[in-house]
């Protein structure tokens, strides 16, 4: 695995860990967990949205560094 592949992987794992924590862990104060959160699909919907947004962000960063110009 190359260094840049490693970096990408670490980045994705970090995001996965973030979303997993916010949506699946943490204390549930209410008596019952809402159905929407118990629904596994939701985690992946949220994750997909998050990952795609980060990919977009990275792309725009790469474009900026490639042209050597700031935003």
């Amino acid at each position, binding site marked *: *695995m190359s260094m840049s592949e*490693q970096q990408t*992987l*670490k980045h994705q*794992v*970090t995001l996965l*860990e*973030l*979303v997993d*924590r*916010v*949506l*699946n*862990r*943490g*204390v*549930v*104060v*209410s*008596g019952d*967990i*809402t159905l*929407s*959160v118990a629904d596994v699909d*939701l985690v992946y*919907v*949220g994750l997909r*949205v*998050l990952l795609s*947004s980060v990919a977009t962000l990275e792309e725009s960063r790469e474009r900026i560094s490639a042209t050597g110009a700031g935003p």
Partner: protein
Amino acid sequence: MIHLYGVVEELAELPPAVVGVDEGPLERHRVEGLELIVSRTVERNDVTQAAVLSHANVVEELMARSGAVLPARFGHTFTDEQELAAAVKTKASELARGLKLVRGCLEFGLRALSGDRASQNTPGEPSGRDYMRTRLAEEKARQRLAEELHEPLARLSRASTRFGGASPDLLQAAYLVPRRDVAAFGDEVRRLEAAHADLTIVCTGPWPPYTFAANGEGEA
């Protein structure tokens, strides 16, 4: 609707210039001696990226300013103060226990991904019995390796949890590490990385203690 971020202890002041989900300003509420951080929000049925990131951001900011934070799980909103107070009251002792557990600690996540799977490279057509023997030996070796990674890190932690029984990852775990042991924990992760160069080990954190927030309920 009221969105709960978490229960805090010794929060000097609300993080300045930090807004919650839907840009709502943060508020402090006290119920049964517990301090709750909330904001007003609209009712919704979906999870948006912005809302998840806002929640995570607020919890991180509280973590940086408090003696202890018990992060709330995203997803449940309360209709009003009465509903929130009633929910907190029924859980007050668990929440107090949770705060005591996480006080002075940071959370770290670890995932170890194994490089190759020897079973996929077995040449020829082994008999069913040989195949099962090989698989069993491999599984034992995997478990031993996972334990070799987990055990020294767990020893430096106040609490630890392993996840993902069915996951292809060799090890998925979370560790609740006292602040004074964070440097030693980092050294241990680097030692494990060096000792197992064939594995991809990803350590993430420090996180607010999401994984251990519910431990007061006796849930891992």
